[in-house]
């Protein structure tokens, strides 16, 4: 987890703006409805990219296209040093697996395994998939749980935890895979307001450590603090993207202004 860990991502300033992930021309339809209309997304190594936009604008679908949970009709996704996965040419299972090997996802609904303890949830990927020695995986898992304040909950079952605790386990489960990229889909939207802070604190800390992340969120204040780039989507297109100081403080596009106004009015 620390920047000296060889598996941890390199600090943002080491390779300035070198993209870890490049997605181009992502198109996706559900039935007759074109939900994504040629989306481009570049995620520099060590950066945090926040996807914002009204509900139904396609944020989740973009995120899921980056790890093959959704298979778009067209577009490419490429990790630096990896294969170009071309969705228009029926990507193989191995190609989709390579996207998932490099990334890990945190879900809005947590999606913890209810029949396994917190510790078992966290070591499942490292032990069963990555074939790491179990003792080592357990030691790592305990250290990570300790860091997010859940050291004492290792042997609890998910149903015994609050939503905020479950989501922190979700984050730890993702971190335990030592991925190059973390994907968050509205990680705090299912939480009671008083539990949001703890989860955001964890994500903020990861950002500071230099993890590369794509984060779908409605927490604009939070996004303006942690994100290097804000991508505003509406109706399946990227309307505007840039640093928070531009997109959130001085938006160029009318649709962005409208969206920000509506959120601020509430």
């Amino acid at each position: 987890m620390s920047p000296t860990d060889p598996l941890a991502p390199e600090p943002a300033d080491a390779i300035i703006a070198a993209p870890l992930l490049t997605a181009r021309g992502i198109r996706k339809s559900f039935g007759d409805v074109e939900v994504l209309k040629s989306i481009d997304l570049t995620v520099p190594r060590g950066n945090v990219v926040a996807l914002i936009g009204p509900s139904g604008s396609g944020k989740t679908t973009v995120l899921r296209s980056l790890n093959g949970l959704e298979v778009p009709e067209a577009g490419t996704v490429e990790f630096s040093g990896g294969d170009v996965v071309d969705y228009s040419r029926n990507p193989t299972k191995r190609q989709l697996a390579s996207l998932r090997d490099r990334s890990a996802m945190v879900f809005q609904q947590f999606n913890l395994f209810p029949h396994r303890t917190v510790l078992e949830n966290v070591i499942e990927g490292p032990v069963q998939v990555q074939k790491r020695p179990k003792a080592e995986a357990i030691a790592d898992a305990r250290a990570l749980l300790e860091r997010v304040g859940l050291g004492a909950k290792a042997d609890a079952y998910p149903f015994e935890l609050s939503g905020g605790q479950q989501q922190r386990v979700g984050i730890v489960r993702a971190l335990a895979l030592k991925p190059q990229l973390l994907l968050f889909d509205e990680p705090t939207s299912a939480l009671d307001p008083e539990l949001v802070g703890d989860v955001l604190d964890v994500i903020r800390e990861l950002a500071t450590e230099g993890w590369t992340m794509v984060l779908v969120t409605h927490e604009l204040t939070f996004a303006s603090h942690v994100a290097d780039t804000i991508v505003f989507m509406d109706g399946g297109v990227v309307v505007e993207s840039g640093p928070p100081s531009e997109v959130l403080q001085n938006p160029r596009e009318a649709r962005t202004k409208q969206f920000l106004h509506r959120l601020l009015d509430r």
Partner: protein
Amino acid sequence: MTESLWDLLLRSLLPIVGGALTGTIPLALLSFALGLVIALGVALMRLSRIWIVSGIARVYISIIRGTPLLVQLFVIFYGLPSIGVLVDPWPSAIIAFSLNVGGYAAEVIRAAILSVPKGQWEAGYTIGMSRGQTLVRVILPQAARVSVPPLSNTFISLVKDTSLASLILVTELFRQAQQIAAFSQEFMALYIEAAVVYWVICLVLSSAQSVLEKRLDRYVAH
């Protein structure tokens, strides 16, 4: 009731309970175990995206559910010999009952697999698991818990249905009662006695079922 009728009931209890212990219960347990294996295979075939595979499973389930168990039993024991395949009573009964359980339980297991939230599959994929790995390590354990109530019902029905095996000469609870009844001519008393023994077995099974359900209920994703 005369003294001798009580005597008869008491004396016949041993062979009837013996028939349950050496016939009914092992027959039900063995057929259920084999039936579950068949059912899991058929349920997975039914969920396959390859239409021919799911089609075969569909036809199998349809035949099993659309024909009487007694007829299935007779086809195997009395029908197969006429095309040169002789099967003894016990194996016939086990084949028929496990194929039958396979058809009914397949639908239960399929529904249980489908009841596990899609997010569980996705969580498995995003930690790098394959479809098969996710099925075995994430989905089936949760499906198993959901299936306990309906599968318990299937098992209790099976225990009662094993009485049909008496018609292909398997010595089990009901056949014992029949033989004593025929010999003593006390039909009413003996058949009621047999009914009571079935009832007691099923009462025990239902209370075991509710204990099991309470213990498993907690860890299911809602």
